[in-house]
């Protein structure tokens, strides 16, 4: 699979943000990110974890190329395909589920690929439906399928399971892992949920409150497939001891 990737995609994606400032409504400047440096390892799941409002979404929008008003650089090879899952599904309500996925799919993404992907995230029956007919959980699955349909070189996930009930969220996390492991992709996920982070991460990046920067990068050695509740709690306890400020709240 490596040989189909653009040259350079197997080297880490370098994210260097010197400063990102928001202008609030009354004109005061608010520094959201300062001296942020991270190398995202290829074909691994990097999870950014930080308190709410620390600038995680801002960071992801910069990496996705949606915001270029910052100083620094984001080293993504030109032509790299991006799959992005927002906090809300953001599907086009006037297109069917199938059309929503096909619209952004990679050129070599066949009808068979679509059927297979839809099967694996459990939306095969929903393809001819319109998004309004779906529950939030199902719409999230469609958004997940859409992100994978681009055959992304970089998969970005912005708190993709927020505001779902815990059971649905957990099922979707396992689903994400399954689809992701079937085609390992460089993935960057942000969350404020510690257990979600520990379940999914190869590399767990702990972020400081605003202005945000990297506090530490923890490598989680246990493969995702073997992380049961007990393992997760053990890792959590260990991290809580070492980074109380980051894990106390959750």
């Amino acid at each position: 699979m490596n040989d189909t990737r653009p040259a350079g995609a197997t080297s880490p994606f370098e994210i260097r943000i010197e400063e990102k400032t928001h202008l609030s409504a009354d004109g005061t400047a608010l520094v959201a990110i300062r001296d942020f440096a991270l190398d995202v390892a290829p074909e691994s799941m990097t999870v950014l974890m930080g308190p709410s409002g620390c600038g995680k979404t801002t960071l992801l929008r910069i990496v996705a190329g949606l915001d270029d008003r910052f100083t620094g650089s984001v080293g993504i090879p030109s032509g790299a395909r991006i799959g992005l899952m927002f906090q809300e599904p953001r599907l086009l309500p006037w297109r069917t589920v199938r059309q929503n996925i096909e619209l952004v799919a990679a050129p070599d993404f066949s009808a068979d690929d679509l059927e297979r992907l839809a099967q694996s995230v459990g939306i095969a029956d929903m393809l001819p439906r319109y998004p309004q007919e779906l529950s939030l959980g199902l719409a999230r699955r469609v958004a997940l399928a859409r992100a994978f349909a681009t055959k992304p070189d970089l998969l970005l996930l912005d708190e993709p399971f927020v505001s779902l009930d815990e059971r649905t969220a957990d099922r979707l996390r396992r689903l994400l892992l399954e689809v992701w492991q079937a085609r390992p992709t460089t993935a960057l996920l942000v969350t404020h949920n510690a257990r979600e982070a520990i379940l999914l991460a190869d590399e767990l990046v702990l972020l400081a409150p605003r202005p945000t920067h990297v506090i530490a990068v923890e490598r989680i050695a246990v493969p995702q497939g073997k992380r049961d509740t007990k393992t997760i709690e053990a890792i959590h306890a260990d991290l809580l001891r070492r980074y109380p400020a980051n894990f106390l709240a959750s």
Partner: protein
Amino acid sequence: MTVIDARHDAVWGMRILRGPFISVLSVGGFLLIWFIAAEIAQSRLLPGPGAVLEYIYRESVYGDLLTELGITLWRVAASFAVAMLIGSVIGLAMGQMPALDRALDPWLIVFLNLPALVIIILAYVWFGLNEAAAIGAVALNKIPNVVVTLREGARALDPGLDEMARAYRLSPLSKLRNVTLPQLQPYFAAASRSGISLIWKIVLVVELLGRPNGVGFELHLNFQLFNVTAILGYTLAFVAVMLAIEYLLVQPIERHSTRWRNKPV
């Protein structure tokens, strides 16, 4: 009466309320009142529906009614196309660019409030009694309304979907077709709706003032002859055409483009 019968009756009642029955009843009632009024008045100034329908038939077969209708309809279509095209472009630009909005806003208010008659007279005076002046004057009367509606549409565009389109690197054409235009569809529909009715009213004035043909010209002619049958005949014929456009063209298109809405979860 059994319970089942009662339910059957209720279903029938619902079907009657939903179908075209009430619309037909309403139009039939109007014709009846008209007929009775004409019978009572017995005047040349209020011919009954029979006389008017007969006039329409006679003028369509032996006279110029269809030609005149066609000419007017062409002017309506041309003015409508020009007004929608220019109005949409300006409206969308104003909705997206606050500076442009501030620059053009006073002019928008001026044109919104300028009487149609002033624009028509000035167009004829400055550009001559020709087709281009006529169509331009009608379009100019409609453009401000299209601008206002489409400006609202542009302001209401969902920034979330815009980000989605950018993140997934949609081409500008694909984004326009799949993301932007569907969001503007209700605004286009609203502008077209009010547009067609406004335009056809103004087209008649333009024809009356400076064209040698069309429904407006015929109305003017028959006004001078005090031929109320002809005036009602032309009016009715044109209203029938507009109703046909509404029911056979506008509504089916609208149903098709909003089929994704209001589906139960």
